[in-house]
């Protein structure tokens, strides 16, 4: 591991990570990756987020869909746990609530494969500090 010893080091790491992420999110090419974030705070895990994450990783792999599944912290929608955020390349991220294996299957088959929406999408109801 190279240590960060200057501001320039930090900036170069930042630039390289940003490039990776934006390639994943904005690319319009069909082979680029779907990005999935699973809210895995204690409350999410308690309501089954771990199972959903494992299911997503395994099933996407089995169905040959290139995807990038990561964990993240609490999204704040505690009433709808487990929650996941799905970003199809070139599309706005969408948050799905009350995701179990059955719902995860529908999300893969309908939304990820076909762009067909599902009932129960959670509208993002906050602003982040970017652009503020």
């Amino acid at each position, binding site marked *: 591991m190279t240590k960060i010893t200057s501001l320039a080091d930090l900036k170069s790491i930042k630039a390289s990570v940003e490039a990776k992420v934006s390639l994943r999110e904005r690319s319009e090419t069909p082979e680029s990756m779907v990005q999935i974030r699973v809210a895995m705070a204690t409350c999410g895990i308690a309501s089954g987020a771990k199972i959903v994450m494992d299911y997503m990783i395994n099933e996407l792999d089995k169905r040959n869909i290139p995807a990038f599944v990561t964990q993240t912290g609490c999204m704040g929608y505690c009433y709808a746990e487990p929650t996941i955020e799905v970003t199809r390349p070139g599309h706005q991220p969408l948050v799905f609530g009350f995701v179990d294996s059955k719902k995860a299957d529908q999300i893969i088959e309908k939304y990820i494969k076909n762009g067909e929406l599902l009932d129960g*999408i959670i509208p993002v109801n906050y602003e*982040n*500090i970017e652009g*503020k």
Partner: protein
Amino acid sequence: MTQYKMHLLVCGGTSCGASESEQLFQNLKNEIIEKGLENEVQVITTGCFGFCEKGPIIKVLPDNTFYTQVKPGDATEIIAEHVIKGRRVNRLLYINPETKEAVSDSKHMGFYRKQLRIALRNCGFIDPENIEEYIARDGYAAIAKCLTEMTPAQVIEEMKKSGLRGRGGGGFPTGLKWEITSKSQADQKYVVCNADEGDPGAFMDRSILEGDPHSVIEAMAICGYCIGATKGVVYIRAEYPLAVERLKIAMKQASEYGLLGTHIFGTEFSFEIDIRYGAGAFVCGEETALIHSMEGFRGEPTIKPPFPSVSGYLGKPTNVNNVETFANVPVIINKGADWFASIGSEKSKGTKVFALAGKINNVGLIEVPMGTTLRDIIFEIGGGIKDGKKFKAVQTGGPSGGCLTEKHLDIAIDFDSLTAAGSMMGSGGMIVMDEDDCMVSIAKFYLDFTVEESCGKCAPCRIGNKRLNEMLEKICAGKGTMEDLDLLRNLSYVIKDTSLCGLGQTSPNPVLSTMENFYHEYLAHIVDKKCPSGQCKALLQYVIDEENCVGCTACARNCPVNAIAGERKGMHIIDQSTCIKCGACLEKCKFNAVFIK
């Protein structure tokens, strides 16, 4: 394979449901089938948009049109105009109250989103176990800026200018605290992060540590640079295993990247962080008790002064801040104090995270600018009261706070307005209560908690709270007298005035605020021997209605204490002296003959 060209998102939140969103949904579907568009347009329901006042809401994708207050009868027009002809239905667009202009594009409707995430900026966004994702979001840029471009005094000045106040409860200005600690002379100083979140119903600190641990590490290092400390300690409750694990991973990664350790960013500044576990005692949220617990002693508070900024952990100057406070720091440095100070109310700057819990539809973690009204929080973001019940009160500030009622809904909440209303900010727990909650029982619930959590060092808190609790028990049992009410109030003031630490000084608040706002409920318990919400079991009476009872004997057969007598096909009677008020008879009766008096 169907590829839909257009999506209509109909809000299926409870509030919108109450304003006919279901019928609207059906009408849209029917209309689409009628026009033969079912393979091109998809209608789906979504969760709450947090804009319930203007519901029902429809969002159209991909053009992001946002319609508000849509009636079921508007379905035909939306399909005919917008979907088929591509013309927006202007009369249903949202009118910006400031500019009086119609807003069609939800991207420009940022202002309807009443939440702004500063402390939670990365929660639910980055992978907390991957430092690179934090760096990609400007992580560690603030500490880099402080170390390479600013002197400690300049950073402190910036913090003071931002107006950030401690988010753990007291609301003490953070910059000032740093300044005081920086002025103490010592060979070693400490930065302590208070992650001993103890208020019932509050979980923002846990969520921040679980979702964005690096922001806390970075802020602690900045604080260390300012006050002249090279050591930081996180005091965290052992009940938060996942937060501990993610914090440890983050600390390890930060060390590997050279962001903790010696010569950070090639400067002379060194900083390292340690973890101390707490056993989850509420009193250890108090700085001095926390420090004693960290030192391996009993978690008991001591009299201030000396303040921790002069003599704290191991007798050295110590700066204690809470997790949420720290999470704000890197943003203030990156975006500037003026930016931060432009958000919030006059004396409380920035945002506050609240944990919404209780009888509310959208239970969750929210972050709003200071100065947002309770009404917006509960009825917009929170989606209103569960099951369409009536709002009664909201408890803020946990066991140290108070209950706010209908008349407080429109106050702009910040540190000072909540205190003026007889409650307090506390760490940001908000427990919403509806018409079914008995306020005397609620006061008793919090007193139970305080009695349990009092460390026992000073008499007013140890004995006084116990006596308060006994009086509340007596009132709930229907044995209270009017003298008890006076005694309750007097004793509350004595405890407030004479207790050693913040725990005792605030513990009678739930009693005082419920007495202030719900005096009639206390009177009902004492004078009429009734619990208006039907919660206090001792004051309930299960009675059988003569007219409805058919003598089926179901109640008598299911009564666990044989309190019900009566012949088959004859009227049954409950013996009140034997009845234990379990409610089994009410549940079993198929003829609505059992009722609560």
